[in-house]
């Protein structure tokens, strides 16, 4: 079990957890109004996208240059 597999495993699980909590937080934030609320919503949305990116990177869908 070389280190890369371990790292990918942890990244996979963590991305699912963080992605889920971030989107849950985003759901709660949707009802708020105001400049800081909109800014938070935008940033949380991009954070969720970041979690997707890490998810696909960890399962080697994104960023595998082996072929």
């Amino acid at each position, binding site marked *: 079990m070389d280190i890369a*597999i371990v790292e990918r495993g942890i990244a996979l699980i963590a991305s699912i957890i963080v992605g889920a909590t971030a989107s849950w937080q985003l759901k709660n934030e949707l009802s708020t109004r105001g400049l800081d609320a909109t800014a938070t919503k935008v940033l949380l949305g991009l954070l969720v996208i970041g979690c997707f990116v890490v998810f696909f990177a960890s399962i080697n869908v994104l960023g595998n240059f082996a072929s």
Partner: protein
Amino acid sequence: MAVESTFGQPSPLLERAAVEARYHNVDALYEETRDMRLFGFILFLLADCVLFSSFIFAYLFLRASAPTWPPVVNGTQIGRLDVAFGALNSIVLFGSGVTMHFALESWKNLKTRAFNVWIVTTTLLGIAFLLGQAHEYTSAPAGLTWSGNAFGATYFTLTGLHGFHVFAGVCYLIVLTIQANRGVYTGSKYFGLTAGTLYWHFVDVIWVLLFVLFYLW
């Protein structure tokens, strides 16, 4: 006298007078200064976006004008960055974004113990990311050096600039933790925490872009 509204919303001072008339316990003057500070902080974040986008333009420009990517140095092509460790490091940072959000929520609900737990976790995760980044720099693929070639130049400058922002964010979080525990922020006046959270989310989002540009493309 008909005092016309500005772009559909009443002029700020009128707004404050109305707020003060209706809710006597709201400190209208603080609300207005908070609005100004928040607007100023968002503008600062946008200006910071321009800073990162200038360097990203440099990266894309040099990558487009390079015959092969990653470029060839002394006859051998530079190896790809380690995606596995990069993914792990990124999720650490994104996790700290989530915990920071919990910290602010718990402060809004006046749960200071939970706030302390969450904000300390965020700071530790931030420091973990910086250590991960340091490891990434030391074990960079052969030939990838700051003054070696365009790939090294753009990679180390951009991720270094982002690392500096994370480091500044960590110091900001430490100051926020101390200030919050010293009682500087109250239940309704906590602009420092809002700004800290926005800044931390901003730093996360910049890393999403950098991770994709350098590691996955």
